[in-house]
């Protein structure tokens, strides 16, 4: 019971912290990109950069760049194993985040970007869409930790290649108004 009370008190303290109206930060993140119903590429590590620009206390626009290195995927039947090189994805674009809370934030977001998909003998640039949910914790005034889960879809014609991206990242807030 004491533990619950302590957790609740900490959560209230974080949530009660007034949010800054505007600010600019820079962040880096890493994680994993997991293909969704793509039987010809494997999951792989994902890294990237973000530049969150808070326009209002609850609205942030966030240009980003990310790169996923897809691992090989094997398909076997009978005595045959077919090996597919993983698809690498480089993407850049911008997300719109709706942030709730103060030092502890839960935020849905969506974005659009350009996705460059490559592997030997395959090279395509597609329009892509992201949408997901993030959890931000700001233990220090200029630093925040972000955990996110998102769906990223690169579209071509009537079909898309999709990934579930799970990331963890740190953002350093360069400046924010009003100053804390």
């Amino acid at each position, binding site marked *: 019971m004491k533990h619950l009370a302590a957790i609740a008190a900490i959560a209230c303290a974080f949530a009660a912290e007034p949010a800054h109206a505007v600010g600019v930060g820079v962040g880096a993140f890493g994680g994993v990109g997991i293909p969704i119903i793509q*039987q010809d590429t494997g999951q792989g590590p994902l890294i990237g950069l973000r530049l969150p620009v808070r326009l209002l206390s609850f609205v942030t626009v966030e240009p980003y760049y990310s790169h996923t290195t897809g691992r090989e995927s094997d398909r076997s039947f009978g*005595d*045959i194993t077919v090996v597919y090189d993983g698809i690498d994805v480089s993407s850049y674009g911008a997300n719109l985040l709706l942030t709730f809370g103060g030092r502890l934030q839960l935020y849905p*977001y*969506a974005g659009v970007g350009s996705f460059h998909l490559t592997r030997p003998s395959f090279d395509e640039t597609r329009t892509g869409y992201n*949408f997901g949910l993030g959890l931000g914790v700001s233990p220090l005034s200029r630093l925040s930790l972000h955990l996110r889960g998102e769906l990223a879809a690169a*579209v071509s*014609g*009537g079909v*898309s290649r999709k990934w579930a991206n799970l990331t963890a990242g740190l953002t350093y807030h360069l400046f924010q108004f009003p100053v804390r």
Partner: protein
Amino acid sequence: MRIHRALLAGLAAAAVTALVATGCFLTSAQIFAHFDLPNPVTVDSQTHPFERVAADLNQIQQYRAQKSKLMGLSDIAVVGTFTNLSGPAGTIEVWITPGPTNFSTVAQVKSGAVRLWGPESIGAAGTGAAVVTLTRQNSDNLFTAAGKSILINQAKGNGMFTLYAFGTAGVYKIRVDHGSLVLVLDAGE
């Protein structure tokens, strides 16, 4: 607070729009499928100069399941092991016609069909280069644009086409073990 709710609704609407634009989550997919050649196949310039395979992709369960949603082929490869049993070094080719055909000579195949794949070099019988194992990676660059186009159109159509495999040296006897046409189906709505 109203602005907040309106933005949240806008974000939800954008997500739904993106979902619609990208095809539904569950029905847009890249599905692996394979069409196996008879095993083994031996083409012999003296007695059986080419192997004819009447292909019907409808025999593949994955193809049948995705056919109504098939938008194209994301990847195509020919895999298998080719062994030159007798004869000099040469090459192997695979030709295609849309729908069923039944040519009786290599000359007829070359005039009435389109080269789908090859030529792939094979060494003289009895040498180390007489056995060629084709993987997806080394098979990939051997497809012709015209042949691939026929294959994609047939895959999107009734799924039926005819393949012809033969050697190009004057005298050849080539066995194909575990030959297969492997596909990645692009399915969507």
